[in-house]
Each structure stands twice: as structure tokens, then as C-alpha cells.
């Protein structure tokens, strides 16, 4: 099988981001929190400080390396929660229909009507700040799109001949959902999940900016971006490098999702 460009680039970037997330502490030059030195404040990139330094003179390279852990954890884990909730609700609603479908639809509309950041804030207010509550808050707020998509897919797939055939051949409801409907709805769900991962990485930034989630000295890409807002004209490298990190990670995830969808669809696989 030929390897497609989007799969190679996306997979490469995602592996790179994961590698940074795992090996960040070894790749960093300095401690991201303790090595503040106001003598070095806001230095542009140089041989000593590859990505420059921030207002407190901390090495941005090191902070980006460490920040990967938090940003990726939030992105991956909370999006997994979103996908699990959204798919479970969406597929069952689409397949069973009836009052359950009405209920799930109402819930989805409710979620879409509430600004997700406000909802996440409310959950954070109840759970208190911290990484775990951040994961839960973001995991509970963004499942409505996945739910919509998977419900629509389930509705479309449900009327396919092979689902009808499975019913005639004596398959039970859950077997039909797992073996017939879920695999055939997976493509769009994977794409939505990878897109959403970028979204949750950005939402984490917003919540950290508001003082919830990751507490100030520990670095995450989002909180670094937020801190850099005031100096974007005087010291653009403060926002450039965490921004690039987010950009490349999200790009990699999207390309990967795209490539995965091609692999999961046997028709497009043999078309090549």
C-alpha cells in the first residue's frame, strides 16, 4: 500500500508532538518554572535561548517542551471523553429513534445553546481548578458535535441493506450497533475527534487564561499564548513559538485524521 502524503506528514507531526510530550523534560535546557532570571527578560531567540525568553527571563524552548505534556494530555484525554459520550449517545439515538432520540436531541440542542466555555467554567467552578477538573470540564462540554454527526451517520447507515440483512439474520441490537453501524460511522467521527482535539487544546488555553485549569507558573501552550498577548508587538517570539506548537500539533492531528479515514474506508483504499 502506498503511503499517502497526508498520512505521512500528519503522522509525523503527531508523533513529533507526542515525542515532545513524553521526552519534553529531557529536551528542555532549563527548569521551566524555577529558572526565572529578570536579567534575561524578553531576549530574542539566540544561540543560548533558542526560542528567546519571556517577561520573567524563562527559557521559552524549555517551557514549550514542558507545556506539551499538559496541552496534549488535555487535548487527547478530554477529546476521548467527548468522543465516547457523543458516539454512544448519537449511535443509540440514531439507531433506536423514538423517545430516546428525542431526549438525546434535546440534550444536544441544550449543549449547543450554552456557550461551551461558559459551561466549562461552571463545571470548573464546582470542581475547583486543577488538571483533572479541566479534563472533566472539557470532556463534558464538546460532545454535541460528535453526537450530531454520529446520529446522522447512524440514521443513514441504519437504512442500508446490510443493517436490514443483519436484522434478518438474527443479529441483536448491540451486535448490529457494534459490527454494522459503528464501523461505518467511524470515518467522520475520527475526523471530528482530531479537529476537536485542536479545539480542546485552545479551550484549555482560554480556561488557563481565566485563572482556572493550569495554574500560572506551570507552562501549557495555551497559558503561554495568553501571557504573551501584551507583548505581541514588542516581543513576538513569546507568542510565536507556543502558537507554532499548537498550530503544528493541530495540523498534524487533522492530516492524520484525514489519512486514517482513507485507510478505514476500503473503497478509497483500492481506488489508489
Amino acid at each position, binding site marked *: 500500500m502506498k503511503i499517502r502524503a497526508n498520512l505521512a506528514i500528519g503522522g509525523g507531526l503527531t508523533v513529533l508532538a507526542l515525542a515532545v510530550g513524553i521526552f519534553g523534560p529531557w529536551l528542555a535546557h532549563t527548569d521551566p518554572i524555577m529558572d526565572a532570571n529578570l536579567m534575561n527578560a524578553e531576549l530574542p531567540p539566540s544561540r543560548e535561548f533558542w526560542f528567546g525568553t519571556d517577561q520573567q527571563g524563562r527559557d521559552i524552548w524549555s517551557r514549550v517542551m514542558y507545556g506539551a505534556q499538559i496541552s496534549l494530555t488535555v487535548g487527547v484525554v478530554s477529546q476521548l471523553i467527548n468522543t465516547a459520550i457523543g458516539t454512544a449517545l448519537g449511535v443509540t439515538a440514531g439507531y433506536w429513534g423514538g423517545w430516546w432520540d428525542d431526549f438525546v436531541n434535546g440534550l444536544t440542542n441544550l449543549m449547543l445553546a450554552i456557550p461551551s466555555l461558559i459551561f466549562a467554567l461552571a463545571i470548573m467552578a464546582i470542581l475547583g481548578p486543577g488538571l483533572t477538573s479541566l479534563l472533566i470540564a472539557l470532556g463534558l462540554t464538546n460532545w454535541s458535535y460528535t453526537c450530531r454527526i454520529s446520529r446522522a451517520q447512524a440514521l443513514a447507515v441504519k437504512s442500508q441493506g446490510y443493517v436490514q440483512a443483519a436484522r434478518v439474520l*438474527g443479529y441483536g441490537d448491540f451486535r448490529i450497533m457494534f459490527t454494522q453501524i459503528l464501523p461505518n460511522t467511524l470515518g467522520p467521527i475520527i475526523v471530528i475527534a482530531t479537529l476537536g482535539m485542536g479545539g480542546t487544546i485552545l479551550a484549555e488555553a482560554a480556561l488557563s487564561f481565566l485563572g482556572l485549569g493550569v495554574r500560572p507558573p506551570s507552562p501549557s501552550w495555551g497559558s503561554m499564548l495568553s501571557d504573551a498577548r501584551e507583548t505581541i508587538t514588542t516581543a513576538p517570539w513569546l507568542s510565536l513559538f507556543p502558537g507554532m506548537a499548537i498550530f503544528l500539533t493541530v495540523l498534524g492531528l487533522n492530516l492524520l485524521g484525514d489519512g486514517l479515514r482513507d485507510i478505514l*474506508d*476500503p473503497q478509497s483504499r483500492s481506488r489508489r
Partner: protein
Amino acid sequence: MSGANMPLLSVEDLHISLTTDAGRFPAVEGVSFSIARGETVGLVGESGCGKSITALSIMGLLRDPLGLAGGKIKLSGQEIQNLPASQLRALRGKRIAMIFQEPMTALNPLKAVGTQIAEMFVLHQGASWREAEAKAVDALTQVKVPAPAQRAKDFPHQLSGGMRQRVMIAIALACEPDLLIADEPTTALDVTVQSEIVDLMKELCAARGTAILMISHDLGLVTDTCKRVCVMYAGRIVEQQDSERIFNSPQHPYTQGLVASLPRLGMRARHGRRRLTEIAGVVPGITSYPAGCRFHPRCTRRTEICETVVPELTALAEGSLVRCHHHG
């Protein structure tokens, strides 16, 4: 009835209703027929006459807005129309199997065909996946798929329509069901492939003693395949005869019209250029079935009685049945 001559499937006075906002309409009314073990019976009629939903009701798969409104469905003497869902599910695929019109869409596009056949053994016989995969290759051999071990690894889109229908037959017959319902099994296929598939189906079912209920709009195909034919019109069975006789002595005006409208080879040479015969008028919609005999607006033999009185099924010689006031 004793076990020996008890029919495998008997449908008695089946009523299916269609419920819409405008009210309840009879989609199928008073349909009765029976199939003996190993027998082949055809159900012929136009689109919308109720033949497919009759099949679905046998499988217990009527969905809203369609619902069973009366009658009994017996499998080996046991009433199955009110069985709980789990028991019905155990029957489906194991004792009654079904193949569909569209082999293009009736297979899961994301699974190798061998796996889809194997799933039947896992589901209904509790086989392990390893032995089920081996049995699946056997099943493909039996439906005469060349290079079955390789084809088992193929995905549905890699196979031709005829091959896919063979796979469907392999899936349907995997658990050696007592009854195979074939709903327009060859409509989507080329004529040459059609006869191969029908021959294969007949041969395999005969070897296993599986009865066939063949549903089609193609009178020629059904009479070729089946021993007995039921003709349906607008939700009712209008005539039931042996296949051999239905062409030579159709009794109901609708069947006569059907037989007359079939194009025959060599007609033009013998009788010159002629228009094909047709039945005047159109099939009534389900919401506007006429009173009395439902065929009367299109019938050449109608009299006053046809407009008000529903004709009963009349038994003729040799076990034939006809529903017409003026049959013959």
C-alpha cells in the same frame, strides 16, 4: 395434524395495517398460504401489492408505520407472530433466512466477505472464530465461488454483483435454515447471471431440504423456480395454482392479464408486428383501495356484484384457489 404432513410454514388470514396520520389502511388482507418442507412457493405481484411486507411479517420485522393486525404465522405448528424479540431473533438466520434484492448494499462494506459468513456460525452455532472462518471458506466453495480461500478475504466492493449474491446465499444458507425467503433475489442482476443464481439457489436448497418462498414480480422466473405460485394484487391473494397450470389456465382476470402481457419469443414472426398486451388502468394506491373486488376498476369482466361484494377464495380442481366472481 401429525408431524409428517404438518406444513413447515403456514400463514393464516394475515392482516397487516399501515397507520398514518390519515388513518389505518389495510396493506395486506386475509393472506393465507402454506409451505411444506422442501417445497418451493412463489409470491408474485406488482410493486406495493404487499408481497415484501408479507415476508417481513414472517420474519417478525414489521416496523412502524406497518403493524400486524391479525392472523397467525406458524412455523412447524408453533405460532411465532407473538414470540418475544429474543426468541424471534434466535429463529432468524437459523431457521428462517432471507436474501435481498440488492446484493450491492446487503453486505457490510467494511468487512471481508469471509468474516461476514463466519459471523453466522459464531452467532448461531457458538463456533469459535477460527473454525467459523474455515467453515466460511467451505460455504463459499458450495456456492461455487472460484478460489474461495482468496475471495473470503475480499471486501464486497471487490466482487461482482453475481458473486455478491452468491455470498448472500452462502450467508443465508450457512446455518441450514428450514426456510429461505428470497425477496426479488435476481432483479439487480444480468439475465445470464440471474439463471445461474436461481439454479444455484434451487440446487443448494434441494440438497438441504430447505423450502423456498420466492418473492418476485417476474412471473416467468417464479414459475420456472417454484412448484406453486400465489398471485397477489392490492394486498390480497387473488389466485393460487401450480406453476405448470398458471400459464395454461390462469383463472383470475388479473393473472390472465399478466400472462397475456408477457412478451413471447417468435410472436412477431407468427402474428406480425403487434403492440404488447397490457392491463388497462393503474394499481390503486393503498389509501384508495376500491370496495368489493379490488381489481374491478381495471377488469374487463366486471359486473355490479364486483363493485360491492368482496369475492371469496374459491377452491377449484387440483388444489387451485381463485378470488373472483367470474373466474375461468
